[in-house]
């Protein structure tokens, strides 16, 4: 009674309401502190390996190409920065989309760990459609290939939603399992003698797909198309952010999603079909992730090799992006930029090896990602303590 009313929590606390409480409590400060702590911890590790953390972070920043925005940059530096920034923005595109795949689920109280599998399904279908139908009108071909990726991701995630709705299967477990099914399906389908292995006579013994045909490639609008310039996928990802925001905040579907996320019991009592929402939400999440896979394929990868599928972990960064971005549109954008910058800045190609070995630095990025997830997970502890106090 006397406790500040804001500490009041529903008895049936959900992931979404827990996060809302935490985020409200932390304001904009919490994610900033999270990043700061993660970078400090990373800096200590750099120090332990006998390097200078400040120089290392400076080199990573330079490698990310974000210094392109500095007006005082010399002409030569600007050319290099532009190349770096193009790479960062190429990675930002799928990170936004896999981030949205996690964020949208969170808003409905679901934890979608299946961004990886949904991304892979999207890329498989995009490469299949994009490398077939040569001679189709270019715009149509791109759209059909993208749509194939979107639908594939949606169906894949929809399976997890359906399992939850019909059998109450925990979506964390089912999406992780679907990830593995997607990975090994992908490994098989492009393998030697498998349906989607390339039909190029020179590459009979290479487990790789056919190339995307010219007409299905996304146009490059900044940089040299031969040197992996920036394709227009970034604008599609930005549009997806807008779609995400409008869907969530301005449609009846989004209203239901948020109601279910915060309090499924109240949503049910007021006539919202909670199970149908689970399926819809997962399908939409899968559509975002699948679009991410499609854009990567149509924008710059152009083919899939089996070992790419096994080593690819980009979609997992989506979890950190969404958590850091507090499941909002603008936050997801900023989170995606941060991690894309880190990934690019620590890549072998971009990091100055005299400052810090890129092989080590890539691990630094993974460590920072892990710390972000870990630090944000501590909200469980915060809420737990809060509730204990209230009971007293």
């Amino acid at each position, binding site marked *: *009674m*006397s406790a*500040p*009313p*804001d500490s*009041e*929590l*529903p*008895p*049936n606390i959900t992931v*979404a*309401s827990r996060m*809302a*409480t935490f985020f409200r409590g932390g304001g904009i400060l919490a994610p900033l502190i999270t990043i700061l702590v993660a970078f400090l911890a990373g800096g200590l590790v750099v120090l332990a390996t006998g390097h200078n953390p400040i120089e290392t972070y400076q080199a990573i920043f330079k490698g990310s190409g974000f210094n392109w925005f500095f007006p005082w940059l010399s002409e030569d530096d600007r050319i290099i920065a532009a190349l770096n920034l193009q790479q960062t923005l190429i990675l930002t595109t799928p990170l936004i989309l896999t981030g949205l795949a996690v964020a949208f689920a969170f808003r409905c109280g679901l934890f979608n760990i299946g961004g990886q599998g949904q991304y892979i399904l999207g890329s498989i279908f995009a490469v299949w459609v994009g490398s077939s139908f040569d001679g189709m009108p270019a715009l149509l071909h791109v759209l059909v290939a993208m749509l194939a990726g979107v639908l594939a991701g949606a169906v894949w995630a929809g399976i997890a939603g359906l399992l939850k709705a019909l059998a109450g299967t925990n979506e964390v477990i089912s999406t992780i399992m679907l990830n593995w099914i997607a990975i090994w399906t992908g490994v098989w389908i492009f393998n030697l003698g498998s349906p989607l292995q390339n039909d190029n006579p020179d590459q009979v013994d290479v487990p790789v797909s056919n190339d995307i045909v010219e007409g299905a490639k996304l146009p490059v609008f900044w940089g040299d198309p031969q040197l992996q310039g920036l394709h227009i996928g970034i604008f599609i990802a930005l549009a997806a952010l807008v779609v995400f925001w409008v869907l969530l*905040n*301005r*449609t*009846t*579907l*989004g*209203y239901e999603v*948020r*109601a279910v996320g*915060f*309090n499924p*019991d*109240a*949503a*049910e*009592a*007021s*006539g*919202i*079909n909670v199970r149908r929402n689970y399926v819809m939400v997962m399908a939409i999440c899968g559509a975002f992730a699948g679009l991410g896979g499609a854009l990567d394929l149509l924008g710059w990868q152009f083919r899939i090799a089996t070992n790419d599928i096994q080593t690819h972990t980009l979609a997992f960064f989506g979890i950190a992006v969404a958590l850091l971005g507090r499941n909002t549109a603008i936050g997801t954008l900023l989170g995606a930029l941060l991690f894309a910058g880190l990934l690019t800045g620590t890549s072998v190609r971009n990091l100055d090896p005299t400052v810090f070995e890129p092989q080590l630095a890539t691990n630094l990025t993974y460590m920072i990602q892990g710390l972000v997830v870990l630090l944000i997970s501590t909200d469980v502890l915060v809420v737990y303590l809060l509730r204990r106090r209230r*009971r*007293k």
Partner: protein
Amino acid sequence: MADAPALELRGITKRFGTLVANNAVDFELRRGEIHALLGENGAGKSTLMNVLYGLHQPDEGQILLDGQPVTIDSPRRAIGLGIGMVHQHFMLVPVMTVAENLVLGAEPRSGPLLDYKTATRRVRELSSEYGLAVDPDAKVEDIGVGTQQRVEILRALFRGAKVLVLDEPTAVLTAQEAQDLFKVLRTLTAAGTSVVFISHKLNEVLDIADRVTVLRRGEKVDTVSTEGATERSLAGLMVGRDVLLRVEKTEQKLGEPLLELEGVSAVDDRGLPAVNDVTLRVRAGEIVGLAGVDANGQSELIETIMGLRAPTAGTITAAGVDVTHAGPRETLNAGVSHIAEDRHRRGLVLEFDLAENLCLREYKTPAFSSRGFLSPSKMVARARTLLKEFDVRGGDPETRAGSLSGGNQQKVVIARELTADPKVIIAAQPTRGLDVGAIEFVHRRLVEERDAGKGVLLVSLELEEIRSLSDRVLVIYEGRIVAELPPESSEEDFGVYMTGGGRDERAA
């Protein structure tokens, strides 16, 4: 210092930020006295007691025990000084026995192990000394709520409590259990223990307390003797104006049946029978009360009516529509409104703002959306009207529901459910946790709906509420309707049926 009061609080002030929870409150507890602390929700009762128990530090003021000033900086210190507190939610370990729970934190040992024999002996000694019957070897999870409370009291006494604070002790008890508790308290005070009794139930306070201190908005209004006080005078002190305790009802104008249950059965979440062959009828223009002790199938019955739980047998008709197998949406659309028993669980989305909460039933209608797109401005505009009409205080349409007080939250639920223009209203515990002013409001609205020709099914654990509002009363026991009584029947008559007695002479 024999004449010094057992406990004295002088000028206690406690602020939380800008909120003054206690403003220079004085409180005096004589030895062997039962002193009630009365006030609306948020009046500062709990804060004052938390200051006493060392959970909060006062910003100003002084605490004196037996005339000696003391500083209480932790519950441990409070216990050491002989202050015991029994919280509303018991702090017992369910899987341990009564004896184990009792000695927890001060275990008699033999070597490193618990000396269980000594523990049970101490329990027996204490329970015979104060006439508090408990079985030391029973597991806490197996004993009833009333007995658990006794264990809590015993534990406080075991730790040497001379001052016992009871925070709304009867909230979880049946009428009979409450009477038992009062007997225990009288025994305790006869033996020299002093009791602070926190409550917002006027009849109880008059029943058990010697004196009453009334708090209002963090300030002490008065301390009066219960001798000569009436419910009306206390309510006046509490709210600061005249309060209608009895609901005024006009002559009944009965119409056609609006809600009909025919042989309805349902199972609970564990698959055990919870509702057994319930047949009941609510007609237009009447309030039918459903009385019963908690967990006798009321919740499951409501969920079955609302389409939240599938019946295993029987038929349900609402406003002429067969809703036996309808989902929640169809049931609501048939003209049923639902004031949920737990507003935090079913009634509100606490993270939603008030405008969003007020639209929970109607967000899909053309009034608030078109082609799947919401119209926030319309939602806000409607919310503004409703908040005014239902006198919801402490928030505007953009305020998060969770930051309102309980009474105002309930008003939001009621505003939403009544503006849906229902034919049938299922009001489950509509005044739970509300203070006198808010209760009066809720009761008046329900009676207005009845007078407007709606059918109201009132489910409540508060017998007093059922008796004062209902036109007729059904008693539910173990999922069955065991009796229909006129509301004027005595509390004892109700008590017999509510606890499973008198089933042979069961009314039709």
